[in-house]
């Protein structure tokens, strides 16, 4: 029925996608060429990335509930209640992201006649993890559709995109609907009212404000929340993630677990991750020396735990298609992302978060970095010719 000439011929690729989801295909190798093949395939690779994201997803879901009850003053809420609030908030966003983006992918499979690629399995989960829990669902859908069409399919689909698709979705929301993605949106309140003295400011926002207020960032963070919940932004809370933020971004520890999974399985590049951390750390120390405003005085290692830095480093910067593709290039790519993140954060009062824009900018420059590395290879070859 789905084969050529059958009634539903147009939908053959979709049928094939479903079939290969359940069963590994039975195609054998061709008569000439490698007769045996490695057991890996793209589906398994993508599943590994999803598994690496699960700690962030699970913790983030629980944390949405946890922050909810802190904000409304019910500090004795049960764990089950926290999970219920979290699931009630996160699952709709996940579903909308997968369905909206998935529908676009399916449409392109039919139009372009290329097989349904597994890339969206990862993107569909990344998008919910980088948006606040209060994001309107229609915005999630719009962002997913925009990102898949403009950032991915317009370039040729999985493996051909220049920009990170999930970050494009977030950037779209940031610039098109700024009021739902910045400000006091990071804690899900539901129908309830927050306690007296509650403030929904994030560490990034507070650090940003310190440029004008003149107060030391660490002091501001440590004293934040006094009266309604002490130590919201203490160093350990920020590291473990017990604070408001985008759903998956808050916990540096969960991101480190994800990084370990990606590095041990060889799926994510440790060179990119280490480069980003080193670049940010170096730039953070450099601006400490310049010290023109309190944000610059913030200790460099604080950059690693506030905002979406950890999440972006582990899951966004390491996307193999949009990162630099040569091994040497990955170092340069990572280090520049780290440097740019800190620059955007401390020098520009308009953008509290730098990692998203830094990664998108370096996505554009990654081919240039690779170009010079490959040029060097070509020059070495020519040099051998003249010796």
């Amino acid at each position: 029925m789905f084969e050529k000439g059958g009634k539903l011929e147009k939908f053959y690729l979709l049928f094939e996608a479903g079939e290969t989801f359940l069963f590994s295909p039975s195609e054998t190798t061709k008569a000439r060429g490698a007769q045996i093949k490695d057991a890996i395939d793209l589906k398994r690779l993508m599943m590994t990335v999803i598994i690496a994201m699960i700690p962030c997803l699970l913790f983030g879901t629980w944390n949405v509930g946890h922050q909810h009850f802190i904000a409304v003053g019910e500090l004795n809420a049960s764990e089950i209640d926290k999970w219920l609030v979290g699931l009630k908030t996160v699952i709709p966003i996940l579903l909308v992201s997968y369905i909206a983006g998935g529908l676009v992918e399916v449409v392109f499979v039919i139009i372009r006649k290329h097989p349904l690629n597994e890339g969206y399995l990862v993107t569909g989960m990344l998008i919910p993890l980088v948006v606040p829990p209060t994001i309107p669902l229609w915005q999630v859908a719009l962002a997913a559709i925009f990102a898949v069409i403009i950032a991915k399919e317009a370039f040729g689909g999985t493996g051909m995109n220049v920009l990170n698709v999930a970050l494009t979705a977030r950037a779209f929301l940031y610039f098109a609907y700024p009021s739902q993605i910045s400000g006091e949106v990071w804690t899900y309140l539901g129908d309830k009212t927050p306690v007296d003295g509650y403030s929904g400011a994030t560490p990034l926002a507070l650090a940003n404000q310190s440029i004008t207020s003149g107060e030391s960032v660490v002091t501001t963070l440590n004293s934040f929340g006094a009266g309604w919940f002490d130590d919201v932004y203490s160093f350990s809370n920020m590291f473990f993630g017990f604070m408001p933020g985008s759903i998956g971004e808050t916990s540096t520890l969960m991101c480190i677990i994800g990084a370990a999974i990606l590095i041990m399985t060889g799926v994510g590049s440790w060179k990119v991750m280490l480069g980003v951390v080193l670049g940010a750390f170096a730039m953070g120390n450099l601006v400490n020396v310049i010290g023109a405003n309190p944000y610059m005085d913030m200790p460099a290692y604080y950059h690693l735990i506030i905002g979406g830095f950890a999440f972006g480093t582990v899951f966004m910067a390491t996307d193999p298609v949009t990162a630099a593709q040569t091994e040497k290039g990955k170092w340069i790519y990572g280090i520049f992302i780290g440097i740019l993140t800190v620059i955007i954060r401390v020098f520009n009062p308009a953008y509290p978060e730098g990692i998203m824009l830094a990664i998108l900018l370096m996505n554009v420059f990654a081919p240039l970095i690779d170009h010079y590395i490959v040029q060097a290879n070509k020059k070495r070859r020519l040099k051998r010719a003249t010796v």
Partner: protein
Amino acid sequence: MSQIIKLKRGFDINLAGKASNKVENPSQQETYAIKPSDFIGLKRPKLLVEVGDKVKAGQPVLFDKVMEKVRYVSPVSGEVTDIVRGKKRVLQEIIVKADNQETSVQFDKFSVSDIANLDREKAIDLMCESGVWPNIIQRPYGVVANPETSPKAIFISGFDTHPLAPDYQILLKDRKKDLQVGIDILKKLTDGIIHFNINASGEIPSEFSGLAGVQFNKFTGPHPAGNVGVQIHHLDPINKGDLVWTINPVGVAQIGKFFLEGIYDSSKIVALVGSEVNDPRYFNVRMGARINDFAEGNVKNDNVRFISGNALTGTKVSSKGFLGFYDSMVTVLPEGDQDEFLGWILPTTSKLSFHRAFGLFSFLNQGKEFSLNTNNRGEPRAFVQTGVFEKVTPMDIYPMYLLKAIMAEDYDEMEELGIYEVIEEDLALCEFVDVSKHEIQDILRHGLELIQNS
């Protein structure tokens, strides 16, 4: 000056079904074939025989109109029973039914001192006429060498690191005299060095020790350390305009024997290996032997694939098919043509992988022998994962960029990225580990043809 080179990048594929040291005679040896498809560069083949003709061993049956001097000859004497053509009348096989008594075309014999006095032109003429010339392959392009040219050096790889590859010590037992004469002849063909590359993790093997006129170099490392292309890259890289020749030690011995005894001797020891073989061992056969002549009765079941050559670079043949000219092994693997439920995510230790993604645990078991089937393990996709090809290519080449240049048919880019330095076997491991299941060897051959014809 002898070199010792340690290579780190690469991957050894440990398959089940290694051959024991037994060498046997097969039960029947009746039908043989010359397969023009074995010779990649054959541009315009012209037949010299027809069905029903009687031929002697060593009698020319084919030549290439573009390189008329080189003759391709029959491995045995007998009658031409069939000429098999494929699509568009492409010559596929010239099948010869062997006589009981073999008659060969007779050439002059040379003693060792005669050979020292033999001049280059005469040696080349004799080799081309007799059918031993196609043993010599040129790089770049990996085609049969042009006898009108002269290379800057000749390279011989004395060890084979492909999966289940046969041991040259068995293939060339007691052939040292032939090897030496072969090398003496090869010395006349080039002003440069003859490099003889051996596996450094041991002494120079007994069959090769004491060979004069060559520079021994030692290589260690995982596959593809035994690939002559990799060795060339580290000893004397091929640049644009360079020409080198490569030859298999079995070919060297055949050349030597031809000059010493004046006949084309197509006899060959071949290893029958693979997980589907009951008793993997060696057989005394001849070039172009029918697979079933020695494989029949030795194979576990019917749903298998016969590969003339090794599992990475060989060619699929049917059981009634014939051994390739350059091959000294036949690999028999299970066909992987079954669907597997959730095969892409279930954890597995029995499937071999270079990667360590979720559920792939073969890296924990380094010494294990795997029984791999021919399943493609996934569908073709665009390039996604990066950095993997470089890990299995011990050369200063970026394989992914080279492949993309070929797919874009960008001639300048292909040249600059080193297409002259590789042929299919050098990138075969990339094809094995590729997550996106590209047909890399096909793509590379396409690129080589583009450049050759440009």
